[in-house]
């Protein structure tokens, strides 16, 4: 690894101003993405700015109408939080499927999202449940919808120096299911992952690892939402729409064809489970 300057700011403002001082500076949260890339020589940062000292929120807060998860909350915290397990079990499930226990003890949800991998495991449940992200540039804060946060592979709406501070999730009575397919059961990135969510008979379908970003498939949702009755034929038609919309690539984890096959099968299964239809 090349040499770099390590900075521990004590405020968000300080972190942002340090970040803006150069063109090749990086925020550090758990480091489970960043350090790997640095070791491989893919990233050669000038400055590493540690967010862990910068006063970013960590932990999980239960408010009356919403749940707040700090960007520094680790995936183990989310996986094991009895509150999250009760209220958004599919997010806990997704967090618990990421990497190994070792990884999850370090990795943060903020890092998982800002890293913006199309396969990021916490992305599809957050988009499905209608989460919003609070972003801060040290002075002002703004909110964006989770589904609008991702712009491409490793690209987000974050402006230079802006950081992800907190995740806001509306409390609701909806039900969701997360599914991840990987080559082996522990410690593997998703070949595909997805969340299907249902609230007051309205569905949200979000597919990961099949496009440059996690993808919400609105046309498929429409089909379900408009239907009077959900039966097997409709579910199959919906799954077909999903498959037509996604644009997966072929890589080590699976061919595009195989990914489509996986999505078709499992999206149908998840919808069926939520709708109470045998698939």
């Amino acid at each position, binding site marked *: 690894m090349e040499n770099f300057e390590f900075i521990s700011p004590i405020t968000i403002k300080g972190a942002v101003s340090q970040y803006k001082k150069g063109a090749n500076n990086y925020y550090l949260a758990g480091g489970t993405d960043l350090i790997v890339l640095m070791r491989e020589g893919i990233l050669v940062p000038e400055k590493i700015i540690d967010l862990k000292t910068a006063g970013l929120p960590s932990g999980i807060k239960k408010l009356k109408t919403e749940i707040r998860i700090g960007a520094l909350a680790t995936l183990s915290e989310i996986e094991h939080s009895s509150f999250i397990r009760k209220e958004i079990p599919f997010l806990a499930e997704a967090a618990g499927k990421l990497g190994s226990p070792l990884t999850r003890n370090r990795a943060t949800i903020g890092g998982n999202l800002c890293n913006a991998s199309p396969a990021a495991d916490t992305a599809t449940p957050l988009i499905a449940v209608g989460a919003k992200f609070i972003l801060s540039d040290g002075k002002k804060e703004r909110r964006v919808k989770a589904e609008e946060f991702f712009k491409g592979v490793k690209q987000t709406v974050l402006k230079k120096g802006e950081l992800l501070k907190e995740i806001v999730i509306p409390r609701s009575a909806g039900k969701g299911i997360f599914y991840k*397919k990987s*080559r*082996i*059961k*522990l*410690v593997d990135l998703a070949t595909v992952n997805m969340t299907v969510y249902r609230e007051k008979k309205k569905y949200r379908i979000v597919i990961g690892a099949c496009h440059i970003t996690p993808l919400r498939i609105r046309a498929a949702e429409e089909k379900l939402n408009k239907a009077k009755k959900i039966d097997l034929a409709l579910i199959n038609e919906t799954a077909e729409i999903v498959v037509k919309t996604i644009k997966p690539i072929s890589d*080590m984890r699976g061919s595009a064809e*195989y990914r489509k*096959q*996986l999505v078709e099968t499992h999206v149908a299964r998840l919808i069926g489970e939520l709708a109470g239809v045998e698939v």
Partner: protein
Amino acid sequence: MFKEVNHSRLKVDGLSLAAGKALFVDDMDFRELLIVKFMKSPHAHAEILSIDTSAAEAFPGVHAVIHHGNTPRIPHTTAGQGHPEPSPYDTYMFDKKVRYVGDPVAAVAADTAEIALEAIKLIKVEYKELEAVLSIADASKPGVPVIHDEEDSFGIYDREKNLAGHVDVKVGDVEKALADSEFTVEYEIETHYSQHTPIEPHICISYLEEKGRLVIRTSTQVPFHVRRICAKVLEMPEKNIRVVKPRIGGGFGTKQEVYLEYYAGMITKLTGRPAKIELTREEEFISRTRHPMAVKVKLGANGDGMLNAVEMDVISNTGAYGSHALTVMFNAGSKCLPLYGAKNVRFNGSTVYTNLPVAGAYRGYGATQGYACLEQAMDILAEKLKMCPVQLRKINHIKKDETSPIFAALGEGKEGVPQFIKSTALSEIIEWGEEGLNWSDTKPHTEKTGRIRRGKGMAIFMQGSGIPLVDMASASIKINDDGSFNLNVGATDLGTGSDTVLSQIAAEALETTTDNIIIYSSDTDMTPFDVGAYASSTTYISGGAVKVTGEEVLKQIRMVAADMLKCSREEIELKNSIATSKKDGKTKTYGDIAKYALYINNQFQIGYIGSHISPVSPPPFMGVFTEIEVDTWTGKIEIIKYMCGVDCGTAINPKLAEGQVEGAVVNGLSYALTEGYLFNKKGKMMNGSFQDYKIYNIEDVQGLEIKLFSTFEPSGPFGAKSVSEIGINGPIPAIANALYNAVGVRAVRFPMKPEYILELMEK
């Protein structure tokens, strides 16, 4: 009946390992340690026209740069086998030619790894790229480039055809027998590249001790072969080299290879400083691998199911260098064909060079590849015969006191030795599996419907225990004042537990307890010779040496005790570290006896060095019965049950023996279902990390049921045979047979990934 063996004694190094106290190669600090890094070939096949290292040498912190221009050119093999090796001498420390992507071009020794890597970027090499051979199919086509066209290599079967080795052995008349058979089967598969992935990669540190001798501390399975091969390549006598193997983190065959130690030794020789080489995981993947093989089996049988003829054709891919080229290929025949008692048998094997990563020894050693085809062919035959596959095996498998002509015809790269089976529980194992899996309820795939389909599969296997009349091991035992014993063995514990097993054998032979044995192993200065840990030999061969040594020491103890207790030797009874005179019931402890012999009268050191070779290699046997679920939507195979019965003779330490089987099974499941190399068009491996090369971990293992079946092997120490390799042979054929039973498709390529299964089902 046994007091120390056949009991699951605690691992003698267990506590120190668990407490982090045991020292591995890298756990010792050396002053002025240099780190050695390789510059590797970016081309699969190229000539080096020129190499300019001046800028690298001038780089601050660099202490030596070695390459073909400044190192001795000594043809050798890295196979780490006994002398003289049955592998071709086709390898050099560095050559003017590179033969696979990753072949070492130069090595840089520097104060830090970072400096060495920076300096490597400054080396200028001019290559002339040559056409590369990238598959078994292309290797021997007319007009293909010759990979080993250098003049001074030798032992290559036919270099013009890229043939590293070849054999054609016939017993009886196979052609006629096949023609005369009512039922015949011909089946062909190709197995794939895979790697041992030991948790500790290859690592060694060399340094000079105070008298100027070279010490190499290395993670090896073969310390004595390391000494011999380094002596040759470094052009220095064996007496000036000491090789020490500390605790090591797994080998599975890849650490039988001797190919890093001499680079470190060379750097130490040149600089006088300690030098360390540690492979990265990416480098580990292209260090040594399993030979991929194209295997074809023909079977002929009459209506009663008795086999008339078995023919096996094998083309093995040894990659760029011929490490274990001949012997792994031989073992595909010699470890598979004797399992069935056909009178007409033929084995035709070739090993080809390609410009792909170098293959070498890997747990299973050719048998794994052979069985992948043979045991599927047996199922196909059973179907043709309309016979239960279990029944077909029952009537054909080799039984006690039977022999096979293959034992004598095929050995380790030469003829073998005749032998009869003296211990086997294979019939019982088959009964156990048949019952445990409710085999009689098995339905054909044509009767299965629905998304998730279950299938049952079975297969049977044998392996060997050491190389007969070749593998030699020795042990030395001496008594201490308090009646404890030092046991020094050349044998190599690579995490297998052999230090424990050998201590138990010594304790049993010496009529004492295992905690009275202080074992020290694998140090060429301190311990007597042993060929090392390979060919499933340690318990059987090294254990044999420990047993004879213990028995000799016991005779001396008896003699001294008789002197002390004033009775005849025959009147001495030895038990639990106490000698009792049957005449008057008086006793002396081993401590009394040791002190007497060391200090009091007719003083001498009670002790002995004993050696052992075996004229035979008794096979352990195994039966695997598995039930799987195939998801016809995704192609995913789930193991529901994997029953594995193993006859390893007397299990010296049942827990450790089970552990060996478990490890081999999981290793094999991973090989069968997920592991595989992806090469680009230019022969570069593209998935050299655990992110993209997936090995099974604990969550993937389910439904495993392992049972040891005790037999008594008369030629083994206290009835023991081997156990470490056989388990890996099971998964491919047993799961492939279950796959057929579930969905009616046969896997001919591997691993059996979901995508491939779907592809087969769509055909």
